[in-house]
């Protein structure tokens, strides 16, 4: 059992809004094993971000259970078990790139020498060595997002939660970052949960694809990818890749994602 990182059983979440209750998640059952790369894909309102936020203890489920590393999300958060990458890089403009990566390390009480060493290491990991002293506005959007990934990696959490981290970037930059992210995942053997809108991105990155459908947000299909772990960008033109992508699209259609 120690190999199971996320286990959700019959999990539901209802938001109380001014227009009455909105069911964001319904009957979610999901198991994620250590070292997996799981993508959550679905149209807006399918609850994929909400589920990520439940894992991160930013939202509380209304019913059902969820365990992260065998404990509640709150305990997992307090033991700093995960790094969270938001849609926007969210770097502090008054801190340098190095200063931004140091921020969680300062909060968690790492020593000065260890902070310096870790900042250097994660900057190498995301190919941003030499940018430590630059301010965020001096970097491109893609580089800022890489810095924010470095920040989430700096404190060695086993789990990386990523909420559409490349959603605001253009396709060329996105391809490049996807490739880098896979290399990084191979190097660090972390468990990654990745929310996305893009079918190719989900298929290219994941070992497991969770297809979700809206109103209420539920899981339409879970696909274990047959693709090999070593994936050059060209793999997107192979029949295996297209077959998985087709199945994802079928899953999305079955969820009546685009009904009128």
């Amino acid at each position, binding site marked *: 059992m120690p190999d199971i990182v996320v286990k959700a059983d019959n999990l539901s979440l209802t938001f109380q809004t001014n227009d009455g209750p909105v069911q964001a998640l319904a009957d979610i059952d999901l198991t994620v094993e250590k070292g997996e790369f799981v993508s959550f894909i679905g149209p807006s309102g399918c609850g994929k971000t909400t589920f990520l936020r439940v894992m991160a*203890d*930013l939202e509380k489920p209304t019913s059902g259970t969820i365990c992260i590393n065998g404990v509640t999300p709150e305990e997992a*958060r307090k033991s*700093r078990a995960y790094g969270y990458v*938001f*849609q926007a890089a969210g770097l*502090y403009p*008054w801190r340098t790139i190095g200063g931004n990566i140091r*921020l*969680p390390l300062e909060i968690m009480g790492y020593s000065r020498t260890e902070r310096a060493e870790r900042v250097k290491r994660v900057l190498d990991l995301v190919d941003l060595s030499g940018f430590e002293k630059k301010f965020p506005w001096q970097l491109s959007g893609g580089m800022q997002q890489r810095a924010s990934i470095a920040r989430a990696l700096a404190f060695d959490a086993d789990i990386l939660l990523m909420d559409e981290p490349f959603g605001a970037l253009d396709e060329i930059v996105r391809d490049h970052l996807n490739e880098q992210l896979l290399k990084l995942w191979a190097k660090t053997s972390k468990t990654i949960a990745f929310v996305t809108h893009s079918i190719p991105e989900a298929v290219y990155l994941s070992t497991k694809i969770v297809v979700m459908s809206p109103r209420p947000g539920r899981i339409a299909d879970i696909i274990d990818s047959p693709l090999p772990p070593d994936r050059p960008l060209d793999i997107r033109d192979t029949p295996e890749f297209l077959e998985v992508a087709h199945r994802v699209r079928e899953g999305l259609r079955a969820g009546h994602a685009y009904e009128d």
Partner: protein
Amino acid sequence: MNRKHSRVLPVLTVVLAIFVLWYAGAVALNAKWAEDKATRANITLSFPQLVADTWSQDKPKLPTPHQVAREIWKTTGAMALRGRTFSKRSLIFHSWITLSTTVLGFVMGAGLGILLAVGIVHSRAMDMSVMPWIIASQTVPILAIAPMVVVVLNAVGISGLLPKAVISMYLSFFPIVVGMVKGLRSPDRMQLDQMRTWYASKSQTFWKLRLPGSMPYLFTSLKIAMAAALVGAIVAELPINQNGGLGARMLVGSYYGQTIQIWSALITAAVLAAVLVGFIGFVQGATLKRMGMAQ
């Protein structure tokens, strides 16, 4: 070079326009007195004579810029040259008194304002209960409150600089509270969520996110507060005028119809305000540049 030019020219144009209006206004307002004098002496004034008279009266309704400038020089530089910089008649002496009240009141107001803002941002109860009082405090006319503050503080044995500084503080804390509440609340939901994912404490969130995020707001409100503190100091010098200060100088001037004296105190106060606000602007530029936030 070009940018500097484009800034200087509009400023000079406005200054020139003010001078033209000022001199014209002096002619219009002081003409009656000049004409009355001429009638009594049984002479008729030509227009150039009339203008010359309106620009050189002893107690004009509106003194001209050169009269005010001469008076300011007489009570500052000229006295300093004779080694009487801090004589009771010197504007440097009076400015110093107003300046010390302003700075003390400003520092107290900034401190109080920041403390209140921190309380309001962190405590919902304080947000609900204190904020309305803070707003109400500013609707009370300061002129009515100033003598009462002086009397009350005198009754408990506090006199001198402090009562005036309290009045100055009363005006200057308000813009700081408003600006800092907005500034401390400027971090968005995502930034606060992010702090939560790192399991940051409230104080860490404050020192590392809220406070640095509020800096641009802080400096803007410090500038307004500084100007308000100066107004407060001048108002406070009206009931406590035996101690001197630019406000006392204006009041005494108005007792004796010394319009030139009033105007020179007024202009000095304006210069003082410009210097103080300019100083904060300088600190702001330096700080934000160090923080990498300069525009």
